[in-house]
Structure formats: C-alpha cells, structure tokens
C-alpha cells in the first residue's frame, strides 16, 4: 500500500497513463478535492509537465501528447478565468469545464477501485477444471475444411493483425509545437510592438487545417501564460467578445494577478 501512494504522487516525466492521471495526481498530492479551484491551482504544474514532454527526444516522447494538449485547453480556460476576472466564458466553454471535473471524478473512482483490483487479482483464484478427457476425440470434419477455405482464412487472420504503429497507440501524433520556441517568438514580438492581437499571433504560425489551428492557439496560450507567470507581459482583455490584447508589461500588476490566482 505504501509503495502505491508514494509512486502515485511522484511527478516525473513519462510516468503517467494520461492527462487525467497526471491531473489527479497533482490535485491529490496537494490533498485537494476535484473542483474548479483546485484545477486552476495545478494548471501551471500541468503545463510544465507537458513542456517536459515536448522537450523529450522523439523516441522517448509518449504517444499521447495530443491528449495532454487537449486537456490543457480546458485547464487554460479555467486558469484564464482565475487570472482575468472579467472574462466571460461561452456556454460551450462552461460545459467543457464541468465536463473535465466530472471526468476527473470518474477517473478518481476508477483509480481507487483499481487498487482493490490490484490487491485481489490472482491472490485467490477460482480455477476452472483442466481440459476434460471424457472420451477419445472422434474425427469429425465438416465440408468447410478445404485447402481453399484454409488459405483464405489465414489471409483474413493476417489482415486483422494490427500494424506495429497502431499497436503502440501512435495512431496519429501531430508534431506538437515546441512551447519554448513560441515563448521566444512572443518575446520578440513584444519588443517590436507594444500591442498586438493574440488571435493574429496564433494565426501567424500558418496552420494547415482547423485541427492544427486549435493546437496552435492552445500552445500559444500556454506560452502566453508562461510569460505572464514570468512577469514579461500583461494580458488585458477589455471585453469578453474582444480579442485578448498583449502588451509590454508593468511588472507589478502581473505579479499581483499571479498572487490572486494562486
């Protein structure tokens, strides 16, 4: 038992089954309940974990990075709301937050149940009887046992064996943009312009399709939050329907933002 608890709480790259596992571990290690407040509190830890994933060499990087990024999007909504009190979320965004909370609670229940399963699995087995040898086998073919059907059947078998890539779960891993690179680019832009639109910034990466554009926005947002944390820029959103404006920052105010959010 003791071993399990210490293992779960150690946050180390590559040790998590998925984003929910990571998120739950972060919350539980702070002895918090699953709710919006605790989610906001662990957002930064979560993001730095994803950053450690994208810094890993390609072959070591886990296949599920995209799943981590998807959850990050919702976390960023939660974090933004705590950073920007005047931010009004859409219905869709609200339901994403509620949804994440519920999923996390489901995951927590299963996680606890899985400890019971682990402790009982294979300890006291109800064995099935050995194969029965009541009577000698009686050769009884049927008409479908022909060379033609056998050679067709084996082809069906081979066709349904999953390919190596599928097997590893690397179905379609989009190359996730390096967060570090975006931070650098963002810093450069701030130096040249006092104000620019976040939307323009996210667009400027030239996404190929909508899916990819979403990933760009998320990663850009992550980078932006990172800069806010480091006190380099200040995020101002004048009106909920307007774009977020990024400007060179008055250091003190972003520190305050951060303190209130933590």
């Amino acid at each position, binding site marked *: 038992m003791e071993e399990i608890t210490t293992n779960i709480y150690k946050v180390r790259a590559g040790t998590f*089954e*998925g*984003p*929910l*596992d990571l998120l739950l571990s972060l919350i539980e290690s702070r002895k918090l309940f699953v709710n919006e407040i605790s989610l906001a509190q662990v957002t930064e830890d979560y993001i730095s974990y994803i950053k450690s994933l994208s810094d890993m060499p390609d072959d070591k990087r886990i296949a*599920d990075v995209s*799943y981590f990024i998807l*959850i990050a999007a919702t976390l960023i909504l939660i974090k933004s709301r705590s950073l920007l009190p005047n931010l009004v979320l859409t219905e869709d965004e609200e*339901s994403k937050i*509620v*949804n994440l*909370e*519920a*999923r996390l*609670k*489901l*995951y927590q*229940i*299963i*996680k*606890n*149940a*899985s400890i*019971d*399963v*682990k*402790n*009982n*699995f*294979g*300890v*006291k*087995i*109800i*064995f*099935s*009887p*050995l*194969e*029965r040898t*009541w009577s000698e086998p009686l050769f009884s073919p049927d008409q479908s046992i022909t060379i033609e059907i056998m050679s067709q059947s084996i082809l069906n078998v081979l066709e349904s064996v*999953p390919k190596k890539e*599928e*097997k*590893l*779960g690397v*179905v379609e891993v989009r190359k996730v943009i390096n967060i570090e690179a975006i931070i650098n680019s963002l810093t450069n832009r701030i130096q040249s312009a006092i104000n620019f639109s976040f939307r323009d910034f996210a667009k400027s990466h030239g996404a190929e399709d909508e899916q990819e554009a979403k990933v760009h926005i998320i990663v850009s947002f992550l980078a932006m939050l990172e800069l806010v944390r480091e006190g380099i820029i200040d995020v101002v959103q004048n009106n909920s329907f307007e774009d977020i404006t990024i400007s060179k920052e008055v250091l003190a105010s972003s520190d305050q933002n951060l303190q209130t959010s933590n």
Partner: protein
Amino acid sequence: MELESKIEGLLFYKGEDMSVWDLAKLLRVSPEEIDEALNMLEQSLKNRGIILVRKDDSVALGITPELSSIIESIRKDEITKELSKASLETLSIVLYKSSSAKESAGITRHEIDYIRGVNSSFILRNLLVRGLIEKTTDERDNRRLLYKPTFDALSYMGVASIEKLPNYETVRSQLEAVIIGNKNDE
C-alpha cells in the same frame, strides 16, 4: 433426480460455462426453472470444493478459491498475475462499469477512452488476448462493440459474480452519482 443435480452434472461434463438458455433446452425446462435450480445449486455448494460462478446469462463450475494455492502448486503452466498500471485501470473500468444486468452489460471503447483520457485500443487488445475481457456486439445496435469481463476475470478476482467484487455497490453508486450529475457529458 433434482434439476439442480442435473445442471451440476452437465456443467461438470462441460468444464466451461453454459448459458441458461442452453441448459433449458438440453434439460427441456424453462429458463426460469433453470434460474431457480441454479439458486438452489448455489446453496447446496456452500462449503463444498466446487463453486458456482455466474455472469450475465451464463454459469460455470469452478474450484473454490480456498484451494487456490494447492492448485497453483500442481499446475504445469505458469499463471501471469502481473497487470500494468494501464491494464489495471482498463480492467477496473470494464469490471465495475459494466453492470451484470442483461440490458446494460458492456462498455464501449469510446467510453473507456473517455474515462481514461487516452486511447485504450492497445491495452484492450492485451486484455482480450489474456482472456480477461471479451468483445461482443450490442444486441440493440450491432455496430456497437461492447467490452465485458470474462469468467476468467471473475476467477482471477476470486469472486463468483460481479456483485461480489470488492466495494462493488459503493463504486457503482459513486459512478452513478457522477454520471447523473453530469448528464450533458459528451
């Protein structure tokens, strides 16, 4: 000869699970009579070396878990008891989330992925190969594939039915509570 004894004999002969329906057909009685006789058989086997294992509409006879360690010592093949963290999670979902009630038995891969937050196809395949879960099609919609625990999964857990899993009722009601509280999910 009592119906329950006949069932016992047939299950002994088969050495694997049989459906209530097959038993009814073979013994020329109604499925209800089989069900009733199974309840009696379950009682008769209390404290015996044999135990009745029930799952969905099927039953099998197994050796009481008290003899587990003796049998392990005489088995030729090794038993793999290790489950990775991912397999453990996925198996737990299939065990606790798929109710034994006929009409709602089984869980889709999509639901499993949703709970785990990652793609589970590789893990599901592993569990299928190990015979801990099985894949069936939804009776009401044959395009829907459902995953269910197998008799072996119950056997490894040392329980004669899903309801006897540790904390089954508690976990079920916790799951229900979250799902009802979040009706608009997905």
